[in-house]
């Protein structure tokens, strides 16, 4: 069923998925609310920096163009009255720029409720998309579609989250963005080891001039994510879908690429994983993206790479200022710096692997391949 703004409908008290899809990059969060529609603590917010609620009942997956929350509704604490789902866009952007924004309720793969946010004149930069709420001993879903022009700060304050600056002791709402001005960051372990390091590449599939076609990759661009890995023993490995070199988490190079999904129905982009437990055996990981299909046009591709480390804010770098005749972008590299991970933004564009190899002096031997 489709709801209009303000509409509501009952939902089964079962494990449900709330999915938010959009035509542009958006940060989606969930807030656990108690009486008076307020959080009790920062832990009540589930977002990119804290993708799982403390009780494990709300779990965020994906991000950017397709974010979902798996919620075991029957296991929600009695005191929680409502779970609100929000979308925020960066800085001077507004929700209207996303072109499409949708929230839906799914159960076991079936869509129960669909809500398309009317985009006309959307000036908010943070929107309460919808909410699950208790009503007469059952759960219902309301399509709210209201928000704040001022973005995440007034939104969070609306729910009683105290937003200080970037240096909040427990939770930083800010992502770390690597840019020309701030090209590197050094990360030390939180606890014993680095956990699983997850690196996501996402991008716009279609041409914005013809309107977004999120799910059609045929006419758009297929970006592949890959890495050069140098281990401490001096071995060098290429990890990429081309040539089926997917790598391995448990053996050298301790870097693995998730199977390349070229069926066209994945909007999660591409994922590369680094086994942080084995960081001591890794010297350097150079991460790159290349255009496997389609014409290089980095501006309209609007690629973004987000690196997730457990207990750390996500690190984002955008594939901007691209040289349009060059199909390969060296995005970032992770260097083992006395046990810490030094993340450096590179953002340099090359015509192919060999040119990049030469520029960073890796010394692979190259021949053409296909997947």
């Amino acid at each position, binding site marked *: 069923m489709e709801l209009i703004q*303000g509409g509501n409908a009952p939902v089964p008290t079962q494990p449900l998925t709330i999915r938010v899809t959009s035509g542009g990059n958006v940060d989606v969060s969930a807030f656990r609310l108690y009486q008076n529609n307020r959080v009790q603590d920062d832990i009540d917010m589930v977002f990119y920096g804290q993708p799982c609620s403390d009780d494990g009942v709300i779990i965020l997956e994906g991000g950017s163009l397709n974010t979902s929350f798996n919620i075991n509704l029957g296991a929600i604490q009695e005191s929680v009255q409502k779970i609100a789902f929000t979308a925020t866009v960066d800085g001077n952007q507004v929700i209207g720029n996303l072109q499409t924004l949708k929230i839906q309720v799914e159960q076991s793969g079936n869509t129960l409720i669909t809500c398309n946010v009317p985009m006309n004149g959307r000036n908010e930069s943070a929107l309460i998309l919808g909410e699950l709420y208790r009503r007469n001993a059952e759960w219902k879903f*309301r399509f709210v579609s*209201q928000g704040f022009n001022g973005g995440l700060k007034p939104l969070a304050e609306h729910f009683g989250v105290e937003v200080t600056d970037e240096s909040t002791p427990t939770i930083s709402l800010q992502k770390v963005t690597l840019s020309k001005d701030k090209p590197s960051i050094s990360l030390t372990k939180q606890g014993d080891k680095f956990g699983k390091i997850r690196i996501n590449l996402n991008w716009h599939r279609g041409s914005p001039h013809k309107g977004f076609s999120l799910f059609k990759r045929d006419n758009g661009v297929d970006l592949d994510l890959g890495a050069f890995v140098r281990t401490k023993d001096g071995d060098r490995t290429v990890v990429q879908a081309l040539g089926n070199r997917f790598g391995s988490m448990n053996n050298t190079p301790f870097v693995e690429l998730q199977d390349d999904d070229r069926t066209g129905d994945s909007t999660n982009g591409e994922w590369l994983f680094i086994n942080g437990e084995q960081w001591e055996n890794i010297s350097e990981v150079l991460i790159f993206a290349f255009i496997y299909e389609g014409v290089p046009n980095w501006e309209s591709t609007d690629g973004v790479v987000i690196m997730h480390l457990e207990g750390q804010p996500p690190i984002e770098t955008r594939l901007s200022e691209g040289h349009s005749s060059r199909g390969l972008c060296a995005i970032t590299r992770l260097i083992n710096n006395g046990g810490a991970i030094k993340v450096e933004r590179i953002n340099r564009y090359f015509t192919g692997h060999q040119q990049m190899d030469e520029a960073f002096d890796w010394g692979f031997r190259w021949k053409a391949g296909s997947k």
Partner: protein
Amino acid sequence: MATVSLSKGGNVSLTKTDPTMKKVLVGLGWDARSTDGQDFDLDASAFLLGSTGKVRSPEDFVFYNNLRAAGDAIEHTGDNRTGAGDGDDESLKVNLDTLPTDVAKIVFVVTIHDATVRNQNFGQVTGAFIRLVNEDSGKEITRFDLSEDASTETAMLFAELYRQNGEWKFKAVGQGYKGGLSSVCAEYGVSAN
């Protein structure tokens, strides 16, 4: 009187269930908008109808621009355009004893001002309710949760009080109404623009 729970369309004889009720208060309340965007401006209105089902004259339409009718037998406490304040934000008070005998029915209506232009409905408004109360005793006879149960409506016929065999009866209607206040006016014989 015990609280009467009324389903839509249920009729209650006030003479039997609340014989002391002489003064009826219809209260409309909602929360001021906390998100950005145009205010939610809800309006409570009443129509005094003759036996034909139409107003006796345009003055029988009691709303934000016409706060009194039938002497002072019915009074609107004034327009609230934002929902600011606690409890009832707008109310209509009726003295059943002093209503002219040719008033056969009173219809209470709630609408959202400029709902179409502002693209609003009751479901977008937080905490919106309309209730009918015995003003003397303070007892609430019925309450309707607009935010929840009329979420996709922009106008609603809330309730009717009508004379039957010399006594007042009450009917909770809760019927959504397309076209806003002007179409309600047309229904009851008030030409409005």
